[in-house]
């Protein structure tokens, strides 16, 4: 198949571009031996990958990529919540992934008693209320405490939400209801897929557009930017810190609720631990894109979603699908070492 040649060419092109960049920026990589070794490794991996691809059909590749994009979009919706909160409070909101899981559970319980058209808005509303309450009860009292205490409080909330979910569901995996439109199948590029897979990236782009408009054009958006720039000064300037922080939690929770509807339509079972891993991955996406930056978080999330699905889709004889979660964290560590501020983040300066 043509793909093999194309992928090897792509590896060569990337290395060419990389060496080109480094010629003008010699500080990045001083060791040409290291670079050529990297190139050879990259080439070898590409050859193996394409070898594996040749055995599969183009349709398979497309379906893997499509589902990667959709998983990425769902991570993006969670990642925005992380990046907004971190940008303003400098807090890794460990409970955010569990809020996402609780939203999924509410989706199950609400659709059991009312029509879907009513239950989805209600899920979003109640999730927003949950996020708002968590902030008021667990984070607000610790506003002046050391950062570590707030993070511990977040871990405590996450523990509480998981245990409550275990209590309410009885620890059994719950089946997510099929939403008529989203779960129906459609044929794209010769592969059958669900509507949700196609719809997710579009919806994400729309929501991100609206959110950037909110942040760039409105008064509350301006306040959010000010607070993330300098907490103390904006407080002195008369910005109502608490309402700004509540707003970020409201936006984050609403997006997480939307994300949960999309995510769990694809993954039929919800367990109390279902939120932890997507939550951590979304956080990694936020770090990857540069914490505090919304486009960064979205791009990072898409990248992680696609890579993860590719790893899961590799031939089963390689036995690498167990690394689909580990890959995300390896990426995190590489990013933290090479470019701690992320793709679009601003370099933080510590004043002594």
């Amino acid at each position, binding site marked *: 198949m043509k793909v093999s040649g194309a992928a090897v060419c792509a590896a060569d092109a990337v290395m060419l571009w990389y060496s080109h960049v480094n010629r003008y920026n010699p500080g990045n990589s001083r060791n040409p031996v290291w670079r050529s070794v990297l190139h050879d490794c990259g080439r070898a991996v590409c050859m193996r990958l394409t070898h594996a691809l040749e055995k599969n059909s183009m349709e398979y590749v497309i379906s893997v990529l499509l589902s990667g994009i959709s998983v990425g979009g769902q991570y993006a919706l969670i990642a925005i919540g992380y990046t907004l909160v971190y940008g303003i409070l400098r807090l890794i909101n460990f409970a955010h992934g569990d809020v996402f899981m609780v939203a999924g559970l509410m989706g199950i319980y609400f659709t059991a008693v009312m029509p879907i058209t009513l239950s989805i808005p209600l899920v979003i509303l109640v999730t927003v209320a949950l996020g708002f309450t968590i902030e008021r009860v667990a984070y607000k009292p610790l506003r002046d405490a050391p950062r570590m205490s707030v*993070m511990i409080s977040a871990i405590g909330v996450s523990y509480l939400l998981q245990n409550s979910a275990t209590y309410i569901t009885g620890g059994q995996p719950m089946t997510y209801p099929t939403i008529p439109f989203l779960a129906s199948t459609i044929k794209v590029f010769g592969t059958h897929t669900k509507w949700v897979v196609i719809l997710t990236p579009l919806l994400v782009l729309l929501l991100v557009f609206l959110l950037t408009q909110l942040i760039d054009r409105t008064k509350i958006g301006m306040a959010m930017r000010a607070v993330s720039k300098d907490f103390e000064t904006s407080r002195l300037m008369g910005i109502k810190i608490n309402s700004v922080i509540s707003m970020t939690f409201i936006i984050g929770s609403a997006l997480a609720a939307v994300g949960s509807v999309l995510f769990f339509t694809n993954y039929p079972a919800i367990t109390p631990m279902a939120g932890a891993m997507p939550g951590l991955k979304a956080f990694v996406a936020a770090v990857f894109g540069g914490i505090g930056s919304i486009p960064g978080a979205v791009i990072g999330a898409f990248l992680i979603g696609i890579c993860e699905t590719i790893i899961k889709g590799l031939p089963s004889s390689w036995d690498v699908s167990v690394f689909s979660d580990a890959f995300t964290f390896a990426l995190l560590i590489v990013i933290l070492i090479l470019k701690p501020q992320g793709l679009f983040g601003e370099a933080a300066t510590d004043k002594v």
Partner: protein
Amino acid sequence: MAGYICLLLLIVTILENLSMFIPGMPQVLQPTSPLFTVLKKGAVYSLVAVSMNLLNGFTGLFSLGQAGFMLLGAYTYAILTVPAKMKDQVYYLFGGSLLKTSLVDIFGAVFGTEGVGRAIAMVLGVVLAIVLAGCVAAFFAYLIGLPVLRLKSDYLAIATLGFAEIIRAIFQWQRLGPITNGANMIKGFPTFTSFNITDSSGQVLFRLSTFVPFLVSSICILLIILLINSSYGRAFKSIRDDEIASEAMGISLSKHKMLAFVISSFFSGMGGALFAMYVANAQAKAFTSVMTYEILLIVVVGGIGSISGSVIATFLYVACSEWWLRFLDSEMVLSSGFKVPLLRNGFRMVVFSVVIMVIVLFFSRGIMGDRELRLPGISARPVRPKSADKGKAAANAAAQTVTEEKSSDEQEG
């Protein structure tokens, strides 16, 4: 301090063997009683909690990699001690293990496989395996520490958490099956009950299964206390209080952070080995981030920066979750016919997490804050010792008093 430890070990041994020599002891002192589960698990967890406190509370490095290092320790111990004749059975999916022998078998070849020789071989093999478990965890901590210790507070937390997840994935990889048994559990290695002294027919003569974890963790905790009271310990605390000032005082930040990280991981690895002995198996999927969170919450409840606090909190936590609050998980109907609402499976953990949230929010200093428990005979020393064995003694005493309460409760019920 050594005196208190000896006293504690003596009490544990007597408690454990009371039912053996005096017939008609109450249920709570029988070997199957939850008291001994609590004591064993508490001893294991207190070592891990103290090692986490060394890092988070005394050096100010917020690390969430504890479960990963415990996993390394547990697997090292398990791989090194599964007896040669058990290997084919344990690794049946992979046609036997890559490692054909075990430490116990190696020592057995020297000291003999019968009677006292067998006992010596087992003790030596197990002790060496536990220490090696710590060493493997420490080695990996060194490798991991090189890149991640440059990171600041919450980035460090998330990077170490990520490393724990990566390690977990590697140990579940089927390709490593001949060593790690893939995603299946390793079992069949010596556990705490292997230390009970038996006669030739397998009848238990003298129980040591609670004594062993207490011995290992009190020695380790004692070593940590000595470290904290040394000049290194003071350097750790100064780094926690102010990095820039301590650097100005000539303390090498990278060296001391690395030292604290490696030592803490060493003891976590040993704790992991003890944990494998306690649950009698090693399986990667047990060591999730939830385990780290649990240990972190124990440390917070005990007081960040207090060794005795960590130990007391561990025993309280374990006793509540394994014993005292168990009744919350089953339905209860009072004698008047009133069915107590809410009680059903899982309610215990909800109550538990609410209590923890209350402590985190309103009593953020925990049980002990950064103070230590003082007992007569120790506070008079010139070097202010901060002791954990006192904490353990207190926890043990508490456990004993509760033993009495429990027995009276049972009479009422």
